[in-house]
């Protein structure tokens, strides 16, 4: 073989490799686009304004918790207590904001509290849960999986006890004050859906956008954010560089907890009837969204953009499967498959071929 043809062959090989790499790196998005197109062909109302607003709203509802958990994953950890923390704060928020005239009002002694106070209470309770998690992780060097598994169980007892307090006797907490439901589910912008009707964009979408911006700022622009990434990438390096490892870890979990508190506040009104089972398994969806979005369990890697895309993709799939008339029993198979596929693709980037 002549020298030129050898070079040509090498060049060709190189470019095929590059194309394959490019396709694999973006395989998730490519498949997602194909899925959207196929679902749209099966059912052309999938991409109608009403449906899009629905997907957007669902994404907004699940996003804050995922943003919180993402920080724990960046630290090579996880947080299994998110769901129960959301359940607890949802029930507490709802019970503090019930209609005064309701016969089922849980706390008859108090009127309807101001909204900002309740948000603060919910986020504070979430943060306390986070500090508890972070403390055991940082001080006793326990794996976050173990700590939050325990916390999650402890929280469930609190939750079960809470719904039996006051006049409630374990019933669902509903009859919410309109100030609460309006604040969360009300809308000031609607998208016209044709033939005179319109799909309102609920307020909690704007809250989610606000929180996403705030988290982006914290992750990328503050010392705390940079310390978090350094800690996740190499704890020892962070320690010898003078980073306060214990406080940073606790702060990451506390921030995550505050996010669960906010999610709880939103869910309380969004769902409307709150029981001890509110929030169940939310953490699994949130973790799934993070890993799909490229927040790696390897540690020190992840982007806010990725988390948003992860949550959006999961919601898109769920709504899409409904539209495509796929039997609900199959949903979990699809979800499991996507998680495996996404993580395998993700790990591919960190594998060094030998």
């Amino acid at each position, binding site marked *: 073989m002549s020298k030129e043809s050898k070079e040509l062959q090498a060049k060709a090989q190189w470019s095929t490799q590059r194309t394959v790499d490019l396709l694999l790196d973006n395989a998730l998005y490519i498949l997602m686009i194909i899925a959207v197109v196929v679902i749209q062909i099966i059912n052309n109302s999938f991409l109608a304004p009403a449906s899009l607003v629905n997907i957007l709203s669902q994404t907004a509802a699940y996003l804050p918790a995922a943003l919180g958990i993402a920080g724990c994953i960046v630290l090579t950890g996880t947080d299994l207590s998110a769901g129960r923390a959301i359940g607890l704060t949802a029930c507490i928020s709802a019970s503090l904001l019930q209609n005064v005239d309701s016969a089922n009002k849980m706390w008859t002694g108090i009127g309807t509290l101001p909204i900002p106070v309740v948000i603060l209470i919910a986020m504070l309770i979430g943060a306390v849960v986070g500090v508890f998690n972070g403390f055991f992780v940082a001080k006793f060097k326990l794996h976050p999986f173990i700590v939050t598994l325990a916390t999650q169980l402890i929280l469930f007892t609190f939750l079960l006890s809470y719904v039996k307090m006051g006049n409630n006797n374990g019933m669902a907490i509903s009859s919410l004050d309109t100030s609460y439901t309006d604040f969360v589910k009300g809308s000031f912008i609607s998208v016209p859906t044709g033939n005179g009707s319109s799909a309102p964009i609920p307020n909690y979408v704007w809250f989610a956008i606000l929180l996403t911006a705030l988290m982006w700022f914290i992750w990328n622009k*503050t*010392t705390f*954010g940079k310390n978090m990434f*350094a800690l*996740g990438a*190499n704890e*020892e390096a962070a320690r*010898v560089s*003078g980073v306060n490892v214990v406080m940073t870890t606790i702060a990451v979990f506390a921030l995550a907890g505050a996010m669960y508190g906010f999610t709880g506040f939103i869910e309380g009104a969004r769902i409307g009837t709150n029981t001890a089972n509110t929030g169940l398994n939310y953490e699994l969806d949130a973790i799934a969204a993070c890993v799909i979005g490229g927040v790696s369990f390897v540690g020190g*890697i992840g982007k806010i953009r990725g988390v948003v895309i992860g949550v959006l993709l999961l919601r898109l799939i769920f709504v899409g499967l409904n539209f495509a008339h796929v039997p609900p029993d199959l949903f979990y198979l699809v979800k499991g498959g996507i998680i495996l596929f996404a993580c395998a693709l993700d790990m591919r980037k960190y594998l060094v071929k030998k």
Partner: protein
Amino acid sequence: MDQPALLEMRGISKEFPGVKALDNVSLTVRAGTVHALMGENGAGKSTLMKCLFGIYSKDSGTITLEGKEIDFKSSKEALENGVAMVHQELNQALTRTVKDNLWLGRYPKVGGFVVSEALMDKKTREIFDTLGVSVNPKAVMSTLPVSQRQMVEIAKAVSYDSKIIVFDEPTSSLTEAEVEHLFRIINMLRDKGCGIIYISHKMDEILRISDDVTIMRDGQYVATKPAQGLTMEEIIKLMVGRELTNRFPPKTNKPGDVILDVQHMAGKYTRLKDATFQLKKGEVLGVAGLDGSGRTEVLENLFGAMTRQGGTITLHGREIQNRSPKESIKNGFALLTEERRATGIFGIRDIRENTVISSLKEYLIGGVCLSDKKMAEQTEWSIQAMHIKTPSQKTQIRSLSGGNQQKVIIGRWLLTKPEVLLLDEPTRGIDVGAKYEIYQLIIDLANEGKGVIMVSSEMPELLGVCDRIIVMSGGRVAGEVDAKNTSQEEILTLAAKYV
């Protein structure tokens, strides 16, 4: 000794469970000098420095810096008070950028908690310019070669503007030009009046750069001497506590016929480009070369731990594939890996499990149940034959010294009855005394008719133990030399052939 004492460590002791790591050690560093700290592995050099830097808390003793008594509780405190350290292990956040690593723990801030990227860029450039370091501040750490990462680490330690800077084996991954660069930086710091503590095993470096030399042995202070007029032999004598007349055992093995023939072996994903060589029965074949020349890749490709791209391997006239370590072991190969702690030992498991792990099939009763008795017998054989010093077979391997750990692994491989032993840096991290025993074992193995291929970065060791040496350069075999009639100069010339 006219300069004033900048740092004084007096009577420092530190005990870990079961080990007295430091016993009444003293060290005085004068301003504007380089103070070398020497001693074998485990002599307590790094422990002493970690006591200074606040990573360990000392049990007793005093440390004074510029006449003021100090006792740092954390690295942060040490850094804030003018003590910086280049750590032996590269401790970096690999997924982050160079500048993020450089300013970790002290990001330039605006408004209390917001990081100023602009200020960070500016200060990074300033430091790199002063030190003459050419690394892209925005590059992600993991994309840089190890030597550049090391330079970033050095720049970081210097940038704290400290009075005392500790360099713990800073040159282990640097090229020769970079070592010169580092020495220029150190001289600059010395002229500024800093006190430098320099830890290294490389005697020529020590004698060149340092003003004073302190020697430690077994956690104790031995002596402090001016570097001027000190010889390598004297240092070794002080380090070992006895004179090392024979560093290598007599070579009694007699190479026989060729058993292994490797033609044009190349790696698919790794830097090995073309390796052709033969190995004789009862021969010790050395593989020399600079870091990154493909030494390790020769062994790992041959063993199937790396994927090959062409080439043939012929053992006893029969072509074999060695596609995976499992297949290679079946074909009679054994590989002692380079990083003992990472890929050699199972640290928290006991000696017996570490010994039998590669030959488990031999101990099966009825093909199902492992016989404890057989495993204990074979482990006992290995302990005796390798002269392993251990309280029992049930001892965790990580509690043994490096030399004894290495012997356990050699014993592990001998139980697979290999014909070709591949040894990658067999004496790395092993005390001078224990090295002799490993050399003896290697020559004994050759005497028993096994073929040994040994990679080493220490040239005297290759010259002392091997029969023939192949020299790698840029992923190719640059030449082959007879160990008896060659010199370090000849090997170095070959090693630079394809660089």
